[in-house]
Structures are given as structure tokens and as C-alpha cells.
């Protein structure tokens, strides 16, 4: 039997499909960040004031903080199960470029946890008094922001997967790196609301995203290789 070697793109697709299939069977775990996001943002009007004009001032920031924390929540377990059951070992030995496989896994993770946050953002934003005119900016800033966070978090999760109680370490690693996203993201929303052009912060977010996309796989594969050495 001479077997045909799987092309790298097809291999990455298999990893993506696998995580989708697994998520479908464990949907309660996947839904957790989204529930957290909705709950936190709806608590703000209850705790502060129901006055929409007052909420509007902090609305963009609240949505962004909640999205950031919700993304972090889902990250810790990203690679844990795969490292513990030996799947990543087989990925390392598959003869495929490990970085692409891990990027595919992160992409699946983003579709399952980041994308729902983006889609829900107009609804939770409306609850915080954000006008419809900022929906576009809010969603596009979150689209770039959650994408970057998934990759940054992927690097952090890959580094801490071998560490016991890695979740604390993970937050310490990823949160400082996520601060520029938070600043540019909420700034873009508030600029749009004040009638200025949000192009500047959005372009910076895009630049950070593409930097993470190009360097992330290299960092993740190096970190996973260290983790399987144990």
C-alpha cells in the first residue's frame, strides 16, 4: 500500500473540522464565554444607572472589557486536553508543519468563542445605549481584536499547558499583551461616537492582527514542542 501524503491545507482543515465536531458534542463548554459576556454587560446598567446617555459614555469600553475577559476565559483549556491525551505528540510527528495545524486549531477556537462575541456585540451594545451608527466600528474592532486575542492566547496557552495551575500564569502573560487591543478598540468606538474618523485605531488593530497571524504559528509550535518534551 503506497499512501498519498496529505497536503498541508487538507491537514489543517481536518484539525479545524475535528474541533468543530468536538465542540458540537460539548457545546456547554463552548457556550460559557458567550454567556459570561452577555451576563457581564447586562449587569452594568443594573449596577450603575439605567440612563442611556450616561451608559453610552462607558458602553464601548464595557463591551470591550467583557469581550476580552470572555476570550481569556476560554483560552486556558485550549491545548490541555490534546497535550494530555497525546494528540499533540502525534501532530508533532505527523510530518506536517506544526504551526499550521495549531493555527487551524486556534481558528476553530476563534470561530467557536470569538465570533459569537462579535455577532452578539450590537445587541449587548444597544443595551448599553450605543447608537446604531457605531455598530460597524464596534463589530470590526472586535473582529480584529478577538482574532488577535485568540492567537496571543494560543501562544500563552501553549507555553503554560505543561504548568500546573497555568491559568494564573496565562492571564499574567496575555493580559499585558492585550492592553493595546483594549485601548485601540474602545478608542475606535468612542471616536466614531464623537463623530471623528475611527480609521487610525482600526488600522493599528489590523496591523497588530496581521503581525500576530504571521508570527503566532512560529511561537505556538515552538512552545508546544517544549510542552511535549515532558
Amino acid at each position, binding site marked *: 500500500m503506497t*499512501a498519498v501524503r496529505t497536503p498541508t491545507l487538507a491537514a489543517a482543515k481536518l484539525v479545524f473540522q475535528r474541533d468543530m465536531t468536538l465542540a458540537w458534542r460539548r457545546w456547554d463548554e463552548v457556550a460559557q464565554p458567550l454567556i459570561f459576556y452577555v451576563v457581564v454587560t447586562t449587569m452594568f446598567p443594573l449596577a450603575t444607572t439605567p440612563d442611556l446617555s450616561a451608559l453610552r459614555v462607558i458602553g464601548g469600553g464595557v463591551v470591550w472589557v467583557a469581550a476580552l475577559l470572555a476570550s481569556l476565559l476560554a483560552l486556558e483549556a485550549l491545548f490541555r486536553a490534546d497535550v494530555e491525551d*497525546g494528540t499533540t*505528540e502525534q501532530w508533532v*510527528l505527523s*510530518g*506536517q508543519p506544526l504551526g499550521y495545524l495549531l493555527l487551524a486549531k486556534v481558528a476553530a477556537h476563534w470561530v467557536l468563542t470569538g465570533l459569537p462575541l462579535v455577532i452578539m456585540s450590537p445587541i449587548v451594545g444597544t443595551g448599553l445605549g450605543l447608537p446604531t451608527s457605531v455598530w460597524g466600528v464596534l463589530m470590526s474592532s472586535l473582529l480584529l481584536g478577538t482574532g488577535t486575542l485568540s492567537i496571543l492566547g494560543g501562544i500563552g496557552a501553549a507555553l503554560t499547558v505543561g504548568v500546573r495551575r497555568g491559568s494564573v500564569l496565562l492571564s499574567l502573560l496575555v493580559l499585558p499583551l492585550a492592553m493595546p487591543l483594549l485601548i485601540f478598540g474602545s478608542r475606535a468606538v468612542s471616536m466614531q461616537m464623537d463623530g471623528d474618523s475611527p480609521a487610525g485605531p482600526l488600522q493599528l488593530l489590523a496591523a497588530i492582527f496581521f503581525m500576530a497571524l504571521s508570527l503566532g504559528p512560529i511561537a505556538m509550535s515552538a512552545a508546544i514542542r517544549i510542552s511535549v518534551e515532558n
Partner: protein
Amino acid sequence: MVVDGALFEAREINAWRGDRHILRDVSFSVRPGEFLKVTGPNGVGKTTLLRVICGLLPAEGGELLWRGKSIRGRRDEFNFELGHLGHLNSLKGDLTARENLKFLAGLRTTLTAQTIDATLDRVGILSRGDLPARSLSAGQKRRLALARLLLADAALWILDEPVTNLDTAGIRLVEELIVDHLEHGGLAIAAAHQRLLDDAPCLRRLELEP
């Protein structure tokens, strides 16, 4: 100088685990059709040696040669010809047996439903193909991991305690699979405590001493 006809060769491999110098100048070579059985007491470094060969652990010195050339810098190429069955079965409990093969063995070689079924049949768990791997017995999980190894279509098999959890029929199956693999020009290196192909002419031993 390459040992005559050897497809795989290890030269003076040294490895440390923490502050323990486990492997000291381990050298051996394997020819096509040979089965190298690594033996020795617990903790002597059998698994370490196998993981060093796979590149899952770094060696502190020495060299590995595949087809006469050092594998340094050619890991992905070498990995594609290497099939690894570790302590862990690398299965996802939530996926069915078929899906496990599709998503893991499929990363290496393009699989069809027929190849997957044929391989499941070969390891004797075809009737369990659509059950989640979680519900399989320990022995059946091991058989499923063996199916993944077969589908990898690799020339060099690295087996770490391949017969763990297997019944007598299962051990016989592993022996058959190895012999079959060797007859097709393959190589196998295994760490095993149990009897495994002990009287076969293809067997060579590598005794690790503490």
C-alpha cells in the same frame, strides 16, 4: 561510516532527565526487516530512548541517521516515515473510532472510508467503528491506536509497550502486524516487558543497563 545496510542508525546517544544521566553513549543500527527490542528494568530509559528517536525529547549529544543521512534539519521528512505508538493512545473520547482515525491518521495520509474500515477490521474492532472511543475497553482503545499506526504507512515503527492492556489474541495480533511490516521491508523498534516475538529470527535485542 554507515553500518552496512542499516536504514536507521543511532550513534552515541546521550540523554538527561532532570539531573539524571539516563542514556550513556547508546549506539545501535537497524536494517530493513529487523525488529529491535529494547529491554531493561523500569526507569532505565527505554521510553526516553524511544522519545529521543522520535525527536520528542532532545538528545544531549550523538547523532541519528536515517537512510545514511543525519536527520538534523530534516525532521519533518523523517517524521513522515516514522510511526509512533506511545504510552498514550492519542484518542479523543468524544469522537467515534472512525472519526479518531480520520482526524489523526488523516493528517499524514489521505484516507478513504474503505481504508479505514479495512484497517479497523484488521485490528478486530470493525463492529465498534461508530462507538465513541470513550466507550471502548482499554484493549480496544489500544487496538484503535494500532489502527492509527497501520494507517500512518510508515517505514519505521517506534512502539512503546505495544501490548499493554491487550489479551492473548491481541498480543498475537501485534506480533502478526510487526512481522507483516518487517516482511514489507519495514523496521520496528519496541520497548517491551512482555514476551513479544521472542523466538522470531528477525529479533535483535538492545539491553539497557542502569
